């Protein structure tokens, strides 16, 4: 069931929020031992909120489509009185005395927050194989990673434990789990959604955004969380709008950029075929697909990496003498950040400004871009190197290769499912737009989705979830 259908059923009294919430909690009880998507479940709080939503709707107080809808948050969003770990030992006892901006807005809209979701340690990686809280498993294949760092968010949405989840994205951390778990994931423009109360990874690259089962459900969450917040120094005053694409929305006449160079090199053949299929579908819908040559994207990625290494270490440096607090992969990145000279960081931010100026010109020739989200389907848990189109590549580098640049440029980017690999794993298609053009990106995504660029729901493959139950012991090993 989509979020929209659930919202409609609540208003027609065919369902209550308490019933929806109980069903979601039962599903979490049943599936979480295998998936390890949730770190904290809040049944009493959720049922209290659900009952409140039911009372309000019965009294005619309608807060909008999220009212009474079960959702969850990546465990780096502050929530008053609730453990917020960021997947790290550093924050294992941290209980915030305030709500993050995202929590404020979601709760004001009446959403029922079921709990906090597992993630890659400190959101600094893409496997979500958390050394302290256990690996998150991909609902499509429990031996595979869900992507990361918002791996719990991707897994929980794909397994239909929740209707939507919040994630954060510094180099692909919303779009990677969306692509690898077969959900929709949106990284909005930098400044569109407040970072206030979200534990930072890299200040100038961090973006907050939703994952959901389809494009319009994702847009509904964006409607709730978007907007200026003076508590976030990067927050934008750019006006918000209704982001939900209308039914039957058209992309006729739209100029869609096809950046073959860089984005269609070194791809798994299944990814290549699925994304080209999505582009062909856009053409059949009347869009004009235009080959486009972009600035040097490998350079943009390198600049992003320098910025990320320096900023993340700036946050964590005071803990780095306690090396036992960190997993090996995160420590390796933090140590690199300690060695980078300040001059390199400043120059990276100068280069970023130049690249931003250069990229403005791209939007004069096209309205948006379509690329693959990840060049590969989900790797196996524990795999650090992977073979892509005949050459060996580090898994982290491969998964972020086609996404990191959009964080550097701060542009809105969405991943939608566009097919399944030969091994029955989801594949993601990425749509990127000019700054603050979330509505355009969502419209293109919805038009493609309406035209059949989609995959079956994961849960429809395992309706009785026996596969999860059998794998429970395997999942426990990862804890």
């Amino acid at each position, binding site marked *: 069931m989509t979020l929209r259908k659930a919202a409609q059923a609540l208003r027609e009294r065919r369902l209550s929020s308490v019933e929806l919430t109980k069903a979601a909690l039962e599903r979490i009880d049943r599936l979480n031992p295998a998936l390890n998507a949730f770190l904290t479940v809040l049944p009493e709080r959720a049922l209290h909120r659900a009952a409140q939503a039911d009372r309000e709707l019965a009294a005619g107080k309608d807060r909008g489509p999220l009212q009474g809808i079960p959702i969850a948050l990546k465990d780096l969003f502050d929530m008053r009185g609730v453990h917020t770990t960021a997947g790290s030992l550093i924050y294992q006892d941290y209980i915030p005395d305030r709500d993050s901006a995202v929590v404020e807005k979601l709760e004001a809209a009446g959403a029922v927050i079921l709990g906090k979701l597992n993630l890659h340690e400190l959101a600094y990686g893409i496997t979500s194989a958390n050394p302290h809280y256990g690996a998150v498993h991909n609902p499509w294949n429990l031996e595979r990673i869900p992507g990361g760092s918002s791996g719990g968010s991707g897994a929980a949405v794909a397994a239909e434990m929740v209707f939507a989840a919040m994630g954060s994205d510094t180099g692909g951390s919303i779009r990677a789990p969306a692509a690898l778990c077969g959900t929709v994931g949106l990284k909005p423009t930098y400044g569109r959604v407040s970072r206030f109360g979200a534990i930072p990874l890299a200040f100038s690259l961090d973006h907050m955004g939703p994952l959901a089962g389809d494009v319009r459900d994702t847009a509904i969450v964006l409607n709730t969380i978007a907007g200026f917040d003076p508590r976030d*120094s990067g*927050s934008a005053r750019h006006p918000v709008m209704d982001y939900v694409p209308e039914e039957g929305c058209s992309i006729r006449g739209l100029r869609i950029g096809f950046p073959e160079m860089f984005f269609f090199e070194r791809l798994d053949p299944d990814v290549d075929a699925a994304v080209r299929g999505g582009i062909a579908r856009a053409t059949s819908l009347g869009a004009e697909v235009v080959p486009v040559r972009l600035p040097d994207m490998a350079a943009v990625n390198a*600049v992003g990496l*320098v910025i990320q290494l320096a900023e993340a270490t700036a946050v964590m440096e005071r803990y780095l003498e306690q090396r036992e607090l960190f997993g090996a992969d995160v420590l*390796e990145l933090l140590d690199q950040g*300690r*060695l980078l000279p300040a001059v*390199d960081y400043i120059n990276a931010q*100068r280069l970023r400004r130049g690249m931003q100026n250069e990229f403005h010109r791209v939007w004069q020739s096209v309205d948006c871009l379509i690329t693959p989200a990840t060049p590969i389907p989900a790797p196996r848990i524990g795999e650090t190197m992977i073979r892509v189109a005949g050459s060996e590549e580090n898994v982290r580098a491969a998964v972020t290769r086609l996404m990191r640049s959009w964080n550097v440029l701060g542009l809105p980017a969405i991943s939608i499912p566009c097919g399944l690999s030969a091994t029955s794993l989801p594949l993601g298609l990425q749509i990127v737009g000019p700054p603050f053009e979330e509505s355009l990106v969502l419209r293109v995504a919805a038009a493609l989705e309406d035209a059949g660029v989609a995959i079956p729901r994961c849960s429809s493959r395992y309706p009785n979830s026996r596969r999860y139950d059998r794998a429970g012991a395997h999942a426990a090993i990862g804890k």
Partner: protein
Amino acid sequence: MNDWTALAQARGLKIDNRELDRIAGLLRSLEQVFRPLVRDLPHGLDPAITFRANPEDAE
């Protein structure tokens, strides 16, 4: 190119040699792409992070 190993030692970072070699290798790879970009930076280009004397002027 920077001598990352010497830099780490000069800073007194407590990283074992095998780990240091690995980190130095990763930084060398990054530097190969990054350093040539810096050579072409125009003088007048400000960094993308800008301090505002009045925080309320934030975009």
